[in-house]
């Protein structure tokens, strides 16, 4: 039964149609500098939006695909950012190498957390608490180890300032490239046996195990991959921004936004992170003048979102479009012909 359900739809679609949304989204995003290219501050905001879209896709791989509530997105990004900064600043590693290594560090951390959660069969709450303690501990580590991390005052990241990351508009395109890669990766995952396994284990874990899905392996894989993605994005940001501090990667700055963005866009959907990141980047900008109400607005958004739109924007829109299409098709077709006789001996 599970096999049947999974092969219908995704794997059957030709590659061009499957990746079209990716290309479309990337194309739209790539056009943004036309509007905002001359304002350095606005480009900063736009880059921030793309960055968060990348974070959210990584979180989507971990939480949206395999249901692991990782409350440490910021810490994983921070691991990537600080590792890359330290490796390139202190140890003189070339920037790209530092970023890749930093991404591996984040992937390892995430994989370890996943492995712990999986081998101890931790449910949602305990996974959340363990990852949250990791996030808070990491934050304290950053603040406490002043010699290594610069503590509260942060770290200046020079490596990369001579490359195109140091320019005004060019970093944006690097981030867009990353976004495109992440979206393509997510889509590829969905169409592969990974995606099939993810859907199966989200639907019914026990049934998936019985069908031969090694739930543990897939969870750890998702945790590792998603964390690596988040870490790489964090590292890229460190080099393009040129300065990082503990507050850049704190729970309040990153995790809250990522969770809300994904929930708004649609947990588990391909474009959900992009839609969510776009919506909340706009909201953040608009709220700049209402700084005192920021927390109140976010809290209210969370409440309304999870009470009214539990699936998120993208899946809801998909369902509405599907319904409209079916209604139109029904209107065109004449009354249905008599059904062929059902084979009553066939199993249900």
């Amino acid at each position, binding site marked *: 039964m599970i096999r049947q359900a999974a092969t219908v739809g995704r794997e059957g679609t030709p590659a061009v149609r499957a990746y079209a949304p990716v290309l479309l989204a990337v194309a739209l995003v790539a056009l943004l500098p036309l509007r905002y290219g001359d304002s350095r501050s606005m480009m900063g905001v736009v880059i921030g939006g793309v960055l968060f879209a990348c974070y959210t896709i990584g979180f989507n791989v971990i939480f949206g695909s395999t249901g692991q509530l990782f409350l440490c997105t910021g810490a994983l990004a921070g691991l990537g950012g600080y590792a890359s900064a330290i490796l390139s600043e202190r140890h003189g590693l070339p920037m790209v190498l530092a970023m890749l290594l930093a991404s591996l560090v984040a992937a390892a951390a995430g994989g370890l957390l996943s492995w712990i959660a999986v081998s101890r069969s931790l*449910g949602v709450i305990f996974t959340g608490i363990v990852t949250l303690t990791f996030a808070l*501990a990491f934050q*304290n*580590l950053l603040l406490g180890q002043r010699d290594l991390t610069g503590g509260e005052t942060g770290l200046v990241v020079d490596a990369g300032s001579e490359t195109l990351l140091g320019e005004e508009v060019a970093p944006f395109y690097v981030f867009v490239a990353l976004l495109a890669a992440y979206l393509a990766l997510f889509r590829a995952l969905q169409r592969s046996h990974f995606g099939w396994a993810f859907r199966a284990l989200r639907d019914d874990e026990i049934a998936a195990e019985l069908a031969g899905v090694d739930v543990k392996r897939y969870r750890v894989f998702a945790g590792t991959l998603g964390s690596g993605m988040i870490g790489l994005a964090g590292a890229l940001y460190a080099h393009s921004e040129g300065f990082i501090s503990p507050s850049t990667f704190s729970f309040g700055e990153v995790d809250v936004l990522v969770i809300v963005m994904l929930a708004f866009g649609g947990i588990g959907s391909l474009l959900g992170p992009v839609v969510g990141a776009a919506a909340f980047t706009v909201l953040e900008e608009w709220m700049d003048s209402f700084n005192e*109400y*920021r927390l109140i607005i*976010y809290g209210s958004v*969370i*409440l309304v979102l999870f009470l009214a739109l539990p699936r998120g924007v993208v899946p809801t829109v998909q369902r509405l479009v599907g319904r409209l299409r079916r209604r139109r098709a029904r209107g065109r077709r004449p009354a249905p012909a008599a059904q062929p006789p059902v084979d009553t001996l066939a199993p249900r």
Partner: protein
Amino acid sequence: MRAVVFDGVVLGLQFGLLGVGLTLVYGLAGVLNLAQGQLAVLGAIVAALRIDAGTAVIPAVLAGVAVAGTVGLVLDLTLMRPVYRRRGEDRVLLGLLLMLGVAFIIDGVLVWRYPIEALTLRIGGDPVDILGVRMRTGSLLASAIALGVGAVLVLFLRYATTGKAVRSVIQDEEGAQLCGVSPATVRAFVFALSGALAALVAVTRSMTSPVTVNAGIDFTILALIVAVVGGLGSVSGAFLAGILLGIVNTVSAHYIGTYVTTIILLGAAAVTIVLRPSGLLGAGRE
């Protein structure tokens, strides 16, 4: 060293009381009240405002506790309804996220309206000598209150009919229903109680150091750590964990440093989850 440990016990008793509310609500409803800290601060700020307005200390404190309890009750009767309609992990996740939203809203409102407000209760009197350690009257009173309220709570849960009804819902909800216990009523009662307890802890904390408007998240994290280490759903576990962690807190802060202390406390929670998820005395609701 003895002074540090005594300070730890004082702190720990209050930690325990803070964790009890969280652990009870989780044991009963499967909901992790991430707004616990904000309810505590809400109560403290209400008390501070009443004191500023000229009310005597005790009525002001009672008002704060009452407001926090009432908000807890309202939250249960309104927001928690859709949460209770779900089961298992679905309920846990939704409850967690909704309470997070509530935490933001309360925090946001308090920081916006009363950004500089803080509760400080100065308890007069000379320091008292306990077993060779000079203890401030504020610490002693805070401990006495925490101990007293804690004892009443434990006795209530053990021996009072309503208290046993509360425990019955934690141990077997369907069984409780078959006995005529209404889980919804019990949950509402406990939610209100946990809000009131949280506010009470904020009040006792203010006897030794000011409780500011942004203390909410620290309180929540503390409550979470204590509840997890003690065992989610276990009241005595929360108290035991509270005292142990309180001592760890003061000893570590005294001899090592504040950042490491926080990591140690967080680590205790993580280690508990990984090695012994039911906690010190857990009823094993997981």
